[in-house]
């Protein structure tokens, strides 16, 4: 924690463009939380994230390789906090309220049955927008298995995740 550079220094170091404004995109409290997240990921405590960790995070959050490459051009090598914030800040922040996510699912369930067919969910999430990989899909179904008829109770899924998340973010 003591190793983090103050925002001013960070601005000096990075090139102009999105990076230098990244600290103004978030509230102070949020930045502090991100600092903690960064420290958690920084296993050897040298204020830098290894590329491996970065790739893990990138895959999890689905940040495109091109975006990473773009940022890495300005700050090559292991990732410091500013770059981390730029790359992942937006993706990590925020907690969508339960309602919002439920409504998102309901778009695919206009009849309001509360369940969706597993195949349909797969199609919906792996073929459009920020596509899920087959692995991600498998992981989701492993954690939240559909019933024997192949139906996914999305209300339950949303409830569990949101309330698990609430614990983290209150």
């Amino acid at each position, binding site marked *: *924690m003591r190793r983090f550079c103050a925002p001013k220094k960070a601005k000096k170091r990075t090139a102009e463009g999105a990076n230098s404004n990244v600290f103004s995109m978030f509230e102070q*409290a949020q930045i*502090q*939380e991100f600092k*903690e*997240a960064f*420290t*958690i*990921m920084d*296993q*050897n*405590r*040298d204020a830098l994230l290894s590329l491996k960790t970065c790739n*893990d*995070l990138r895959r*999890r*959050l*689905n940040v495109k390789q091109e975006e990473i490459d773009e940022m890495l051009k300005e700050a090559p090598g292991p990732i410091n906090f500013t770059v981390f914030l730029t790359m*992942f800040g937006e*993706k*990590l922040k*925020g907690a*969508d309220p339960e309602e*919002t*996510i439920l*409504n*998102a*699912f309901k*778009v*695919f369930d206009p009849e309001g049955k509360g369940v969706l067919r597993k195949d349909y969910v797969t199609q*919906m*999430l792996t073929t*459009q*927008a*920020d*596509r*899920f990989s087959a692995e*991600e899909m498998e*992981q*989701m179904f*492993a*954690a939240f298995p559909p019933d024997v008829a192949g139906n996914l109770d999305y209300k339950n899924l949303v409830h569990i*995740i949101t309330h*698990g*998340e609430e*614990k*983290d*973010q*209150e």
Partner: protein
Amino acid sequence: MCFLFLCLFFAAIKAAVLIQRWYRRYMAHLEMRRRYTWNIFQSIEYAGEQDQLQVKLNRHLFFSFMLDNFTQLNGNGPGELLDPLIDPWLDRETCFDTVPVPDSYAGPRLSFPLSVSDTNALLNAFKDQQTLHARYVLQLLYETKKLLRQMPNIIHLSTSYTKDITICGDLHGRLDDLLLIFYKNGLPSAETPYVFNGDFVDRGKKSIEVVILLFAYLLLYPDYMHLNRGNHEDHIMNLRYGFTKEVMLKYKTHGREILQLCQDVFSLLPVATVIDGKILIVHGGISDQTDLDFLSSIDRHKVRAKRCRLTRQDSTVSSSSSSSSSSSSSSTLCSPRTPSCLSPRPYPLSPIMPYAVNILQVPFLDSLSSVSPPSLPQHEREWKQVRVAEIQTQYFNFSLFCHLTLDSPLQQIVDILWSDPKNQDGCSPNTFRGGGCYFGPDVTQRLLLQHGLRLLIRSHECKQEGYELCHGGQVITIFSASNYYEEGSNRGAYIKVGRELVPRFYQYQVSRTTRKLTLTQRVRAAEGSALRALKEKLFTHRSELVSGFHHASFPGTVSVSEWAQVLESVLRLDLPWRTLRPHLVHLAPDGSVEYQSCFEDMGSGIQLVTPNLAETLFRYRTDIEIIFNIIDKDHSGLISIEEFRHTWRLFSAHLGVDIDDRAIDDLARSIDFNKDGSIDFTEFLEAFRVVVCPCIVCMCVFTLASCPL
């Protein structure tokens, strides 16, 4: 119509994006939770070692003293404990022949020299949860001791005579992991040679079974089975971390004998192994002082922590330091390297200034006599007085002790067994552990070059994947106890290395539940356990924390930032406090922290005692448990109130714990639940655990016994 369709189309995409992003964020957070859970376990494990040097040494000396005197009082006879001139380890020949094995005993009956049928019998017996009879344990240990005496300090192996050599790290009493390794990799044999890199015992519940198997294979295949000593192969560590207790519970009558033999065997274990002159294997690490040639030359079994000694003749104390024959079984390698020890060439112990001690005034002699059996013969009593005075001297001169440098052999071994690698260059004292040092890549490089080595393999630190490389690949940490902190916390691993000397890694994880847990469930379970340990830690520092909160900017309210700062300054665990905040404490409607709420959820015992006392008891819970175990000679789980009070008074006096006698008396009376003068200390300890926090939903059952504290 087309427009409507387009609207729906975009709505679908938007919804999909929302869901995808939300789910990915959840997975990223899950990963963070997994990591900070890990950080919590590690911080707490190492923080336990972080007590001030003074307290540590005091504690070690106190327990050595306790062990000595209670062993004596146990009627084991004066023996070597009263006569410091005989080197005890030479003379502990046990009469295992006189230990009768009843016909009803259905376990393995070993015949020496061991054969494969014996080791197979042991494997099967242990898989069936059987216990090996004490007679065979003693005989096995005795034979192992005879064998190890002939071995050098550093074992040299060659891949030209054997196939791939398998190297395993810490096992810590996890029999399941050892059996899994044997299952996956094969039993030790000419085709499958093994090196086990220390820390076979403590923490896990099957330490004695693990060592029995390892020693049995050592006896069976001395050319293909190699054991390095770890820092836990030491009796003070065993007292603190569970091996002693396990043995005493399983082997009531012969427990002490078994433990004493184990200590002898441990002190005889080689400290290093070298493969093909290229790969060095030690348990902890190295330091900038490490000298392998010197290490080869010392008498490893004679290396012990120094004690200043009294001469019997005069009543004035003069001390002489003798490096070899130290006075008792209770010496240990736990001597820490002091920060003031910076000289490149340490010199022998400097003598302590003589001072007169009036033996009759030794304060706790009275207390001792109240727990001892009635009349000891004159010479024994004198010795006890002298021994007691010896301890008194050390306590009195404690500050001098701090500035004494360790002598060279001890320092070399402590470094090998306790050091950890760090990323920055240089070599600094390992304050985390209180022993050994942190060694940087330059230290590694220098040593490897100096001895023509290519690689250092060590253990000593738990790693999530079971292994980890550092120092540009010149150092490998290998750790073989999976689920070390908690179910699902980490994998175990072992290394195989062949003639090309390129290490290959094999990972595994023992699973105790038949139902496969999802990642979320595993993270939740481990997290719950870690948070409980953390809350207990908070509780042990309650008064400091509360006083810190009172000094925050506005009285009565504490912001999240301030709360986090106070926690870090008091506990110094370097944890992500803001992220952990929701699990530890509530927020008031105005967003400030209700800091008292983190001290809820404590066990029922808290109600019985004053807050101060509760906090102290929490902090010293491990020590209290050790005291209990030493006093409770017959392992009934009960000790008398008198014994408890006396011992606690001794302990608190010598560690400077500020708690008054009356509070202890009150406590003793209130925990004597059935008013019969005895304390069931299992109940007592349970009363001081954190109860399961109802707000964490745990999806699987796990035992509190795996709590790192």
